[in-house]
């Protein structure tokens, strides 16, 4: 198979800070896939994007984008990819329209040429066409940045944490835009610290401390969850967490909103009833205790917990 992105044994350290940013990372992205790089801040996501977009040299390893080596063929790579960096990188003193024209011209194109790709997003920006980019709201800035990253019709689009710090409703909207881009035969590689966004990707790589923990479809990751997850609802979650310190059953537990999530590993049904007994002994009021399917955040917690 011709991979859209192929990363083999990639390593990157920042010796001046004694940080290993990427530790033997290997990932392959299929053409026209919506691929998510999911992990917390400091996991190495931006370092990986900077290498993929030819802005940073790795210490070792091999990376190709659309079959082209990111070091030897960096100029060709640059002309075929689109990149939405994690920080706002347009010209604040140019108007919305001028920014778009500027980026189109850089790629020897005109904004009319590929208007069809950006049309749904561009339409929302039209009322602000003459406004300086620096004066736009956060959401509008990002939509403009996305238009500028797409105006040369890239084959693959890299987005570094486009939804960080964005409210849940706007985030949902943004993912719908990403799906629309994918439907135009563009491969989308996107990073996010929000675990709930993982399920919107075709496949994801979970990353922490520079290491890839797992690469699979979201449903495969959920299927691979080792253990049985239970939940219960309580009105005093912090009080319950205090009591849980006395629980000697072999389990992992953590709060999730007004619920406690508990993972049992062997003989789950027996453990669950022993646990119920424990709660009753401590006169904990709870309701709706039941076994549930884990979400990606549960999987992440299970995969990274100290062994």
């Amino acid at each position, binding site marked *: 198979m011709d991979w859209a992105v192929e990363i083999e044994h990639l390593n990157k350290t920042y010796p001046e800070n004694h940080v290993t940013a990427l530790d033997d990372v290997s990932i392959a992205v299929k053409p026209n896939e919506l691929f998510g790089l999911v992990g917390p801040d400091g996991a190495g996501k931006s370092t990986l994007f900077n290498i993929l977009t030819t802005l940073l040299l790795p210490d070792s390893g091999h990376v190709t984008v659309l079959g082209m080596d990111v070091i030897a063929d960096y100029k060709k790579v640059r002309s075929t990819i689109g990149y939405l960096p994690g920080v706002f990188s347009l010209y604040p003193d140019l108007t919305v329209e001028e920014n778009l024209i500027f980026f189109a011209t850089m790629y020897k194109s005109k904004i009319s040429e590929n208007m069809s790709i950006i049309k749904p997003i561009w339409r929302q920006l039209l009322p602000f066409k003459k406004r300086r980019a620096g004066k736009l709201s956060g959401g509008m800035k990002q939509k403009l940045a996305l238009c500028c990253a797409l105006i040369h019709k890239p084959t693959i689009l890299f987005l570094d944490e486009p939804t960080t*710090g*964005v409210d*849940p409703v706007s985030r949902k909207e943004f993912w719908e835009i990403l799906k629309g881009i994918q439907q135009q035969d563009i491969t989308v590689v996107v990073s996010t610290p929000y675990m709930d966004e993982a399920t919107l990707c075709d496949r994801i790589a979970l990353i922490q401390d520079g290491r890839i923990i797992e690469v699979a479809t979201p449903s495969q990751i959920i299927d691979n969850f080792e253990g049985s997850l239970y939940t219960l609802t309580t009105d005093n979650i912090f009080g319950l*967490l205090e009591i849980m310190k006395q629980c000697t059953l072999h389990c992992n537990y953590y709060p999730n909103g007004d619920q406690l999530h508990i993972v049992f590993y062997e003989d789950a049904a027996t453990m669950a009833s022993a646990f119920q007994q424990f709660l009753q002994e401590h006169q904990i009021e709870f309701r709706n205790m039941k076994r549930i399917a884990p979400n990606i955040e549960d999987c*992440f917690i299970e995969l990274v917990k100290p062994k």
Partner: protein
Amino acid sequence: MYSIVAENLTKKFGDFTSVDHINFQVKQGEIFGFLGANGAGKTTAIRMLCGLLRPTSGVATVAGYDVKTQAKFVKRHIGYMSQRFSLYNDLTLFENMQLFGTVYGIPKAELKDRIHQSLKELQMDDKANTLVYSIPLGWKQKLAFATAMLHRPQIVFLDEPTSGVDPIVRREFWNMIYHAASQGVTIFVTTHYMDEAEYCERISIMESGQLKIIGKPADIKAEMGVDSIADVFVKFVRR
């Protein structure tokens, strides 16, 4: 007793009303969640409450001081932490705390004790002389919180304190918040994680400069007939 009282608090920028006559009270020791979409006016409201921005009209008192006329006293009695502003990377853990503690006028001898005590509680006492850049992000967030608490403020404002933090540390962080609140510190917190909204005693949702809803998470959910605050949020902020 109320730590924060806002009465018809309003801020206009030209003919744009960013915060539009908001009214609420926060009790001492309460964890109060301040939710809303981007651009709803949350940051403007917080800046007014911290004494950094003058209201156009309306009144707010924080720790008993008027934010308009006694901003200096407001600032002394509050702590503040955000995701973007945390700490100086090129200073050690101890030096960071020393810097902020000194700015808040904690006497020298006392400051040293407080820092050691605080680092001990964080289980970072062996890292006192380590430069901040080399510690993990999750530690930095916890350290930033402890630093914001060093001058023992009555109220602490946390602006998206857990944004981007891994799921385990996020939960540890909320344990710290809860612990501080149980000792009487008032917590005013914004977040985009809807599960975290459920940890708050009361939440409010802001939209287009107005407070659309305020109450206990369980009551709001029951009233609206939904299972989670995420559902509540979508209903209020749907455009």
